[in-house]
């Protein structure tokens, strides 16, 4: 445990995910700390950098880890920004832990390695239950998504969501609070969920809660969950997993603007995969169209990504079929404009000549 020259009364605790995952013996990357009994001034004087002018969170000068002054938060309006933050040396560790979302996330370790667990986090870890700490849970609607994400993270260990927490989340969804979430935050949470062990659980819980057609541009179906599973079992990559899910889901006709900000390349890959799902290219012409559809001949080609996803979710893209398209892609890409420029062709003529030559090559290649 680190020691700091902050104030004689100041104490530093390890908190949050690091404590939880240490007790679970689960790998984790970040460690967060809470400082009790100190002032911003004292932290700044010790070389810490404040992350935002109004927010009592500081970065360690060497490790970059987050050190937060113990604080309470009170909701003062709708959405994430509607908070009054109260941080002064009198705020206790227990008060700080009380504002957290789940009991398993509301534990602390002191400098001797002793556990401070006022809300039953260890008990819920043993019982494999995700349970809210208090009614304050409802103050940030993103916690609905976070809880679903933790369910996805620990599903394989047998964790489930407590019934009362499910009810609380249903109430939040019904109240319409999800629609005021920042779309970027929804995406970040969703992206994290995609990278968890069992991403299926996240989306299946959203569906159970009726939240899928608020935050997602589609309705989650059994089909799409199965496709996500097939993807998750072979690809650790959130881009591929999203494409597996989104390309197999039903269109959401009720919601015009879902509360999520999906990065363009995620959206694009899913749409491209959806176009060819169940209809692999049959002819050299189809194959060339497929290659162009996935931008195979330009920077940022999604051909490899598209084939990974189609190969996993669509049995008509079996190994031989995928290999034919891959080799076709290499062969067609080797046809470049230079040779036609030498023949003094111009603009549209060059384009047509390249296509014709690519077709000729594909025709030869695809004849078994």
């Amino acid at each position: 445990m680190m020691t700091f020259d902050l104030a004689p009364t100041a104490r530093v605790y390890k908190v949050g995910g690091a404590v939880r995952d240490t007790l679970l013996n689960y790998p984790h990357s970040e460690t967060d700390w809470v400082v009790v009994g100190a002032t911003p001034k004292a932290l700044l004087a010790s070389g810490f950098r404040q992350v935002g002018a109004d927010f009592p969170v500081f970065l360690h000068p060497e490790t970059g880890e987050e050190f937060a002054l113990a604080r309470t938060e009170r909701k003062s309006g709708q959405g994430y920004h509607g908070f009054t933050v109260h941080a002064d040396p009198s705020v206790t560790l227990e008060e700080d832990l009380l504002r957290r979302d789940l009991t398993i996330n509301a534990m602390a370790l002191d400098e001797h390695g002793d556990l401070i667990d006022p809300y039953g986090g260890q008990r819920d870890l043993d019982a494999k239950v995700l349970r809210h700490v208090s009614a304050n849970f409802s103050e940030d609607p993103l916690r609905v998504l976070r809880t679903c994400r933790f369910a996805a993270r620990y599903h394989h260990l047998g964790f489930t969501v407590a019934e009362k927490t499910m009810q609380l989340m249903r109430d939040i969804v019904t109240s319409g609070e999800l629609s005021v979430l920042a779309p970027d935050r929804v995406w970040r949470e969703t992206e994290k969920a995609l990278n968890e062990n069992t991403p299926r659980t996240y989306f299946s819980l959203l569906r159970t809660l009726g939240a899928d057609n608020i935050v997602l541009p589609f309705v989650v179906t059994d089909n799409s969950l199965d496709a996500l599973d097939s993807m998750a079992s072979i690809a650790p990559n959130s881009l591929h997993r999203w494409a597996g899910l989104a390309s197999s889901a039903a269109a959401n006709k009720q919601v015009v603007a879902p509360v999520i900000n999906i990065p363009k390349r995620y959206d694009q890959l899913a749409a491209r995969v959806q176009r060819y799902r169940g209809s692999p290219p049959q002819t050299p012409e189809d194959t060339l169209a497929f290659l162009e559809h996935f931008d195979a001949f330009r920077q940022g080609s999604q051909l490899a990504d598209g084939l990974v996803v189609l190969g996993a979710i669509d049995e008509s893209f079996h190994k031989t079929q995928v290999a034919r398209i891959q080799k076709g892609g290499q062969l067609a890409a080797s046809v470049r404009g230079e040779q036609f420029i030498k023949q003094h062709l111009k603009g549209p003529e060059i384009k047509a000549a390249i296509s014709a030559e690519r077709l000729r090559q594909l025709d030869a290649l695809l004849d078994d």
Partner: protein
Amino acid sequence: MATYVVGDIQGCFDQFQCLLEKVSFNPDRDVIWSVGDLINRGSNNLATLRWFHERRDNSVVVLGNHDLHLMAVSAGARKMSKSDNFDDILDAPDREILIEWLHHQPLMHHEHGVTLVHAGIPPMWSVSEALDHAAEVEKVLRGSDCIRFFNAMYGNDPIVWDDQLTGMTRLRVITNYLTRMRYCTKKGKLDLISKGPTPTANALKGKKVAPWFSHEGRRTKDDVVIFGHWASIDGVTNSPNVIGLDTGCVWGNKMTLMALESRTFYRCNC
């Protein structure tokens, strides 16, 4: 003595050897049949061709489209495509011997009540009619007119058989049936455009095409036919009498060998 039938090798000599080891192939006693396409795209075309040439008295090879293409390129009638890689044969000191031997191989073989052909037999032909038509092409391949044939061999037209056809046009449609066909109509109109596991709509302007072996009234429906050529169906014909042995080795999938008497299948990964 056992007879084994191997699917498309296409120069994948190592996987072919893997299969022979699997069945403890005895070159002094056992016989091997090939569905054709011995060469092209694999890493060792020359070794494959030499292997069959050395054992020519104990093997049967029916010609595939790639074998005919090699012969046409070797004769100067056609250029190599980018995806062709049989330079090793063209540069070999024994090239002439090997190619000349290919000129004497048949397009079909019929023995032990089994018919071997590279692509298939169109619905309107019986086995004996198909053998007669194959012999028309074989005769030209062995004669001095073969270069004229190689020049005329490429192309998809005419798309259907007509006994009135003569000359090179007649030979082209026979060759297309026996070495290139996948889909056709029940009357034998060829769709040479579709190459995947399902046909492309409208390749024949709305006429219904199906795999050549799946037509109800096919005249060879009581015969056992073994073929290769069609990697993307992965050997699945849904008919016990029609045995597809191309399982896409050259595409990184598998090579298949069948013991003819026991109908046991052996596979090596590629």
